[in-house]
């Protein structure tokens, strides 16, 4: 017979309940609260003047019952397809924009609309507060989160001559990007904290 601590090890001092982290290639990840399937990104997406989902950013998630905070983080790459690529982003939960997640990204204007060199990594994130007394999705606060909520990142471009594409490599291997080099897959992270 072993020691009692072999069967009942001391509790971890970590307040992390679970972590979902994956590259968006269609994989399924099982954690304590369930199995989650990430989107499968196989191409890039050009921006328009209307908001649309960045592929790879969506997850329908239910945190563990004792979660008090949930981090959503979406790491992706954007590239200019028109001058400086001024573009706007936000985190959406169940169809509601979280106002304070709003971000605008852009490169410097080249002085010429014909130069589309700028391309960078960026991230959208929000830490949901599950200790609120009532739901306030606009602020990312919830009193009760016991069923799936759909979280995603949406984007649009500022205007046509300053266009942007997400998950995009404009150049690769010394030339214009082709084939599998035209896109790069983003990653999604969920961390539930107690």
């Amino acid at each position, binding site marked *: 017979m072993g020691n009692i601590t072999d069967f009942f090890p001391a509790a971890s001092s970590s307040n992390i309940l679970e972590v979902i982290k994956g590259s968006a290639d269609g994989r399924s990840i099982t954690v304590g609260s369930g199995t989650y399937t990430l989107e499968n990104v196989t191409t890039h997406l050009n921006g328009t003047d209307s908001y649309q989902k960045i592929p790879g950013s969506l997850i329908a998630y239910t945190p563990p019952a004792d979660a008090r905070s949930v981090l959503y983080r979406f790491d992706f790459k954007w590239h200019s397809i028109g001058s400086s690529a001024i573009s706007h982003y936000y985190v959406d939960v169940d169809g509601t924009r979280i106002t304070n997640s709003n971000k605008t990204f852009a490169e410097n204007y080249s002085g010429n609309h014909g130069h589309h*060199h700028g391309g960078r990594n960026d991230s959208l994130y929000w830490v949901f507060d599950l200790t609120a007394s009532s739901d306030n999705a606009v602020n990312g606060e919830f009193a009760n989160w016991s069923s799936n909520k759909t979280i995603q990142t949406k984007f649009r471009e500022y205007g046509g001559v300053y266009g942007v594409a997400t998950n995009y490599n404009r150049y690769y291997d010394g030339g214009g990007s082709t084939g599998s080099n035209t896109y790069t897959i983003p990653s999604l992270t969920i961390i539930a904290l107690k």
Partner: protein
Amino acid sequence: MGNLTDLFPAPASNSVLETLMGVADGRSVTVPSGTYTFGNVTASQGLSTSYADVTGSSITYTPPTEANYVSYKFSYKSDSRDINYGSSGIHHIALYLDGTRVAKANKSVAGNYSGSHSNNHASFTQYIEFVFDLTASSDDIANGKLASWTTPKEIKIMARDYSSPYYRATIHTNIWRDSTGASGEFTYYQPIIKITAFK
């Protein structure tokens, strides 16, 4: 007297098995799966139009046996190269596992063209990140999928310039510092590797 489980609660369902993180300054870090020594970056690195290993990016890693996913993130600084025609610093980065390129992680990053090849101002922190999936039925490293990972495998980044002499890049570089040209130890920035193994 309370219940036994009040005194010895079950471990959390935390899915993180271990995190290996360090600055590429030659340090050694011990985690449950072993001791790992990081590269030692002491200078910036100019690129060329052929792929070369990015200094500080290589690490040879064996995850814990119960790992289902391994995340590798390499954060570094890039600059437009401080030479005539350097301008926007377009460069390509590629992730390799044991010598095989993981194509979906390919990235091309750059600042925007300034309108003048003599303005080499673009300067950013960049990163490349990929989460290897160890739950596959067979190895498909080009897509970052493995059936098992029980022996040491080298993870590294390779990079090249888009072209020459135009739009060249340099990495780990600070061109400016304290309102003037960088000098001494301020001319380079050591990158960071973060590996997380998940069950």
